[in-house]
């Protein structure tokens, strides 16, 4: 045992050596090496995100249609309330909540963190905030945090502009820019140009001590970034015309779309009924949204681009063009009409028309909107082909080139393609034995055909241009960018040659100006409008009233489509609305009463 006594020393020495090594490393980390110190005050960093102001939206003449106004979040730091007495009743009155609500909100904030701030009430308007602000000194632990909210100085163009909503969980995962509670565009221009409008968030980095008290800027703000305001969007909308159109559509259900044919710019896009856009801003947003979305007339639904309707007699224009193109008729061919029993498409079965001159040629057919003429035309067209399927496929190709049955692919994020059946549809339906007469309703714009008002306006623009169009779009300029997407400045052609548009346009002029025209109430002193009425059959109620038009006949400035659900004949509602709109646009005031 004594033999190993010196081993005691060795074991002791081992322990002491290792201890000294540790002490050296400890000394190195704590005293020598500076990397592990933050600052002399032993502080920790806190990141404050700075909200970016959203870009503004203008109409084509630089009138401001969407603005930002200051708003305030009411913030709370629960710890600072703890031992203080506050007049809760007075507070609740000032803020506009019940005492129960107050307790619920307070508990939620305290649960989140006692010494970190959280939002007590979000999006107080400036008015509410200023009265509250005067009295806020009585309530320690509460303070106001400034931000901006959308304001809509006109209550119009709601469907064009769209609205903002809180981002959902999926969006925050898809795009790291967003955090919970952020607002982003849900539809309309706000959504389509979200990335331009949202700007860039900024960041302020503060030093915060062990009790979370602000100790000043980190490194004098060297790493702070300013929030950058979003780009402004100049839309193609003419706001005066838009407001006028919405007034005209008040208490009606339907849509108006007006396009500038030489550029495809959308001058007006009305969907009725609409709603006040200021309802979907601020504190009451969710509550109001619930009310609006439950409205039976669906004010949130954008009928102008998503509503699909039978085009009615307005479709005769396209059928006329196709028949001319394929040489099935000339503008001079005359066909007869049996009045009430206008056209027989099967034994003892008739397409009805109304009493008028017979026989009549193409121009007169358009002027009077004779169903029989176009049924005959359709039949003659089919006879030009070896088989019905070939005839229909060819017809489908022509119609399709006008944008029917296709998505517009413009800068609205939503839209409907409408419906244009393929020949296989009829093959299956009629088991191989069908011809023009089986589907004769297609000749007069009924049957399975469905178009959206914007498609109808676009077709009118194609006719006004004699054969080409630019994709209808809503953006004119984005600030900070040279030009808009070239997709919108590309000329696109339909499949009909320009020379065949002349008789059609002549017919359209007679509609509004001829002695027998179906839209004589469109006559405006000095303005020779070209148009076509439509009355779409509606099995559930009154027919729909439709009118498409453009002006002037050469170098057209405006092409418009008006669709009024359950409006009766085309001339009853759609025609006056369209002509007033054109008058307003061209003359900038109303000349016709």
């Amino acid at each position, binding site marked *: 045992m004594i033999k190993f006594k010196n081993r*005691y020393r060795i074991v002791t020495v081992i*322990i002491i050596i290792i201890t000294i090594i540790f002490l050296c490393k400890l000394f190195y*980390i*704590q005293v020598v*090496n500076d990397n592990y110190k*933050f600052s002399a005050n032993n*502080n920790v960093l806190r990141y404050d995100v700075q909200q970016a102001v959203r870009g503004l939206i203008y109409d084509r003449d630089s009138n401001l249609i969407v603005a930002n106004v200051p708003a305030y979040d009411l913030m709370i730091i629960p710890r600072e309330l703890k031992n203080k007495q506050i007049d809760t009743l007075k507070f609740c009155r000032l803020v506009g909540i019940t005492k129960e609500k107050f307790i619920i909100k307070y508990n939620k904030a305290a649960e989140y963190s*006692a010494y970190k701030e959280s939002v007590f009430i979000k999006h107080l308007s400036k008015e509410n905030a200023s009265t509250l602000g005067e009295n806020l000194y009585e309530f320690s632990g509460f303070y106001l945090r400034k931000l901006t909210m959308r304001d809509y100085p006109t209550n119009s163009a709601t469907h064009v502009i769209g609205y903002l909503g809180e981002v959902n969980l999926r969006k925050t995962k898809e795009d790291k820019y967003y955090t919970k509670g952020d607002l982003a565009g849900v539809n309309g221009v706000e959504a389509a140009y979200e990335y331009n409008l949202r700007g860039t968030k900024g960041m302020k980095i503060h030093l915060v001590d*062990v009790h979370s008290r602000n100790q000043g800027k980190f490194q004098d703000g060297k790493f702070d970034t300013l929030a950058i305001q979003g780009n402004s969007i100049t839309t193609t909308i003419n706001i005066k015309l838009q407001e006028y159109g919405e007034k005209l559509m008040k208490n009606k259900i339907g849509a108006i779309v007006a396009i500038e044919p030489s550029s495809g710019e959308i001058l007006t896009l009305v969907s009725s009924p609409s709603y006040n856009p200021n309802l979907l801003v601020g504190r009451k947003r969710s509550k109001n949204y619930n009310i609006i979305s439950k409205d039976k007339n669906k004010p949130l639904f954008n009928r102008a681009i998503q509503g699909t309707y039978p085009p009615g007699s307005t479709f005769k224009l396209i059928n006329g063009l196709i028949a001319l193109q394929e040489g099935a008729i000339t503008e001079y061919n005359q066909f007869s009409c049996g009045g009430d029993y206008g056209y027989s498409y099967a034994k003892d079965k008739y397409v009805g028309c109304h009493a008028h001159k017979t026989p009549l040629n193409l121009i007169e057919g358009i002027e009077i909107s004779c169903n029989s003429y176009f049924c005959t035309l359709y039949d003659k067209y089919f006879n030009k082909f070896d088989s019905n399927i070939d005839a229909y496929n060819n017809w489908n190709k022509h119609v399709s080139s006008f944008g029917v049955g296709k998505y517009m692919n413009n800068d609205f994020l939503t839209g409907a393609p409408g419906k244009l059946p393929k020949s296989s549809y009829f093959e299956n339906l009629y088991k191989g034995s069908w011809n023009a007469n089986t589907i004769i309703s297609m000749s007069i714009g009924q049957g399975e055909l469905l178009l959206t008002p914007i498609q109808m306006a676009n077709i009118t623009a194609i006719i006004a241009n004699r054969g080409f169009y630019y994709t209808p779009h809503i953006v004119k300029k984005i600030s900070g960018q040279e030009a808009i997407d070239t997709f919108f400045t590309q000329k696109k052609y339909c499949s009909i040659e320009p020379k065949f548009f002349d008789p059609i346009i002549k017919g359209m002029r007679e509609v509004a100006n001829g002695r027998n025209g179906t839209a004589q109430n469109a006559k405006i002193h000095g303005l020779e409008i070209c148009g076509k009425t439509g009355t779409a059959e509606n099995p559930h109620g009154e027919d729909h009233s439709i009118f498409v038009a453009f002006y002037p006949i050469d170098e057209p400035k405006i092409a418009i489509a008006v669709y009024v659900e359950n409006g009766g004949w085309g001339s009853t509602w759609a025609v006056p609305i369209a002509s007033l709109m054109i008058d307003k646009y061209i003359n900038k005031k109303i000349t016709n009463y």
Partner: protein
Amino acid sequence: MRQAKNIFANIDKISIILYLFLMIFGWINIYASQYNDDTAFAIDLSSRYGKQLFFILIACFIAFLTLIIDWKFYYSLSYIFYISIILLLIGVLFKGSVAGGSNSWFELGAFKFQPSEFAKFTTALALAKYYNNIHFKKISLLDKLKTYAIILLPFLLIILQNDLGTSLVFSAFVLVLYREGLSGNILIFGLIISILFVITLLLKKIVLISILGGLFLLLIIFYHKKKEIIALVSIFIISTLFIFSVNHIFNKVLAPHQKTRINVLLGKEMDPHGAGYNLIQSKIAIGSGGIIGKGFLNGTQTRFDFVPEQSTDFIFCTIGEEWGFIGGLFFIILFIGLLLRILFLAERQRSNFSRIYGYSTATILFLHFLINIGMTIGLLPVIGIPLPFISYGGSSLIGFTILLFIFLNLDSYRLQILR
């Protein structure tokens, strides 16, 4: 009664004072590591510092009991204690619950019980008793194997629990055996192996083997006797084989998280959110303490919970951050002071049993110190192991208390124990 009086007079007061100091200092730091502005200064029994206070009181009670029991109790029941704990170690593999990756706990209501904490002193007792009256070199090979078996059995069972840290503590017994006559070459050998292990992980194999080759060639110049040359060449071959096997073990045998921890330590990997996170946060917390620390309850890293496990494995971070280098130095002096005191007391024992047990106590405590603090300051990879008397935990506190106080008991009887 006279005997009793003598015994109480003979109990080493210094150790007891150091023990109480350490426990209270530990409690203060657990309180600081759990503190936030919202907690009142009341004693909340459901919080960690509340529970730890409770454990401290129980530990004191158990310490007292341990002291007044007659030493023969421990001597005669050594093997029975040892077997019981072995059975519990086997049992916990089947019926235990998993916490922190290791399957080492029994749950009894709100409290957890960890058998491996008690395996330390029971193994020490069993080893001491078996080894009593035996001189290392004169014993048979069978006896030597039995000795190793006493140590290896709990060691392997604890490895099966996935508790690498605690199993490493058993290497303390190497020092104990060294004191009792185990060849010193083992220690040197162990040291060289460790150094070689680390260097192999840092350098490419080829580079290392070339360096070694060069070294040996150099040595051959000095030792040119045939026997010595053969010895040198064989050592070189064995080293090379070792280097290859290290690589193999590292890549194939270690679990991925263990590899990452070692790589992080060596600076080969960053992994700032996984294993590297603990290390970085630990060094930041300790490093930001400076010389005098940030002050009690003012540690920002501790307060904002940047350091994980800061009341258990990483408790030294709180000490380093709030008390600074001065505080850390003070604590280390206390702790090592206690160790060296135990070693001194162990050496003056007349009986092998007491001395072996004493050395076991000191070295076991030292291994905990080595691994825990080495990990927090970045000298060793992250291995979960408590800091004795300081870390939160009932099982560990009571286990260490019993470990220490059995020895203090034996020491107080040293004039009577001659064998």
